[in-house]
């Protein structure tokens, strides 16, 4: 492990501790349980890997990918948490996001099952990076669906969830890039891969720390009521505007 990666790794652990402490002090732990479960599990596994890297460096390589899969799985919980809060009062939109999640992840696991069944030499343990990239792509697609729907309908997103989306999105995006390039360039890309992954994760953690420093409830909007009297005023104004349009047309076109 290079000095830079080591510093970033330690910095990440420190930020994770700060996030977890703030979640208790700011009383947001109960509001975003899946997100904090993710942070807690990453902290615990990173800490364990750090100790293992010092005590038995050869074991670290063996444990890296299983740890990645656990955090990858819990990362889906973060997306679930985001969707739950963004579409808290929009049943249909939440359903669309969940269906997208189900379909994309289902398609990937189905393709893994098919490959394992059809290709005799294909083994999930020897194609870990490949599978992780596919799962990161699935996460990216679900995140984009949430962003697209919330953007299309102009749904207001609070500071906490905004930070969660941004941090997770940056990490997922960087992972998609680095895992893809690693598969393309092979082990030559490993040093850059480590730097990109750890830096992106530290950036994500820093965003989460700032955004989740204190709990901020999501904005709830309600349909307004409009009186018929107000409509009469509107109708009058509409007629005025129509009159001016017709007048303009009368001046230009013989009727």
């Amino acid at each position, binding site marked *: 492990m290079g000095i830079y990666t080591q510093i970033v790794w330690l910095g990440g652990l420190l930020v994770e501790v700060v996030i977890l402490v703030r979640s208790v002090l700011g009383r947001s732990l109960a509001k975003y349980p899946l997100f904090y479960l993710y942070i807690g599990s990453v902290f615990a596994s990173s800490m364990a890997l750090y100790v293992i890297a010092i005590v038995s460096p050869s074991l670290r390589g063996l444990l890296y990918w299983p740890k990645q899969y656990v955090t990858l799985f819990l990362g889906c919980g973060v997306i679930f948490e985001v969707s739950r809060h963004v579409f808290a009062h929009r*049943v249909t939109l939440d359903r669309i996001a969940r269906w997208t999640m189900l379909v994309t992840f289902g398609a990937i696991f189905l393709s893994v099952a098919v490959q394992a069944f059809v290709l005799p030499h294909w083994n999930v343990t020897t194609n870990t990076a490949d599978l992780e990239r596919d799962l990161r*792509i699935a996460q990216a697609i679900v995140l984009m669906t949430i962003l697209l729907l919330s*953007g299309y309908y*102009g749904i207001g997103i609070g500071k906490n969830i905004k930070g969660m989306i941004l941090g997770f999105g940056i990490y997922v995006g960087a992972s998609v890039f680095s895992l*893809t390039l690693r598969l393309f360039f092979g082990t030559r890309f490993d040093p850059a891969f480590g730097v990109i992954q750890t830096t992106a994760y530290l950036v994500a953690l820093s965003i989460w720390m700032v955004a989740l420093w204190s709990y901020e409830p999501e904005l709830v909007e309600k349909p307004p009521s409009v009186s018929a009297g107000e409509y009469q005023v*509107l109708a009058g104004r509409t007629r005025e505007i129509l009159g001016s349009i017709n007048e303009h047309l009368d001046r230009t076109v013989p009727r």
Partner: protein
Amino acid sequence: MIQLIISLLVGVALLAFLYFFVRRSKPSAEGSAQRLREARQTLDSLQFGLLPNDLVHRIFAREDLEYILSSAPSDVQLLFLSERKDIALGWVRRVRGAILELVRFHRGHARLYAQLSLATETRLALNFAGLLALCRMLQVAVYLRGPYAAPGMVRTVAATAARVCNISEQSLQFLKVKPLDPLNDTPSSHGASV
């Protein structure tokens, strides 16, 4: 190689989405009475001011052109074509503006409802997108080839816009002042059906 390109494209797309997400401004109070009034006004101006058959026919009337060509000197013909082109372009611009306003309103208003109809939302989104593209194409056609370049397109724009208006009207039904009719006064008719 294709896998590599697709993966990188997904990464780029996600970063682009995040960029626009960060730049996204706070949602305006689409549900405010003022916004609802504006939407109703836009809808009315479309339905009664811009889309009626006689107005569309008047702007794009071929018999006007034929009359001018047969009985007016060339400078009057040129003036007529130029004026009619301006009117046609103005009409398309106004229809497009009104459609955009309805799109904005619909999105802002629909978000207030928990249960959206996926089919209606998809149909509306496609109608809006198609209509806006059609308006743009019509603008280009009129600009390049004059007001009589694409009569079929004009009819399509007017018909599609009228269809969109009908769907949007259902969302704004509660703004209509209805005559008193106790027999038909069902509570369901007062809600926005989006």
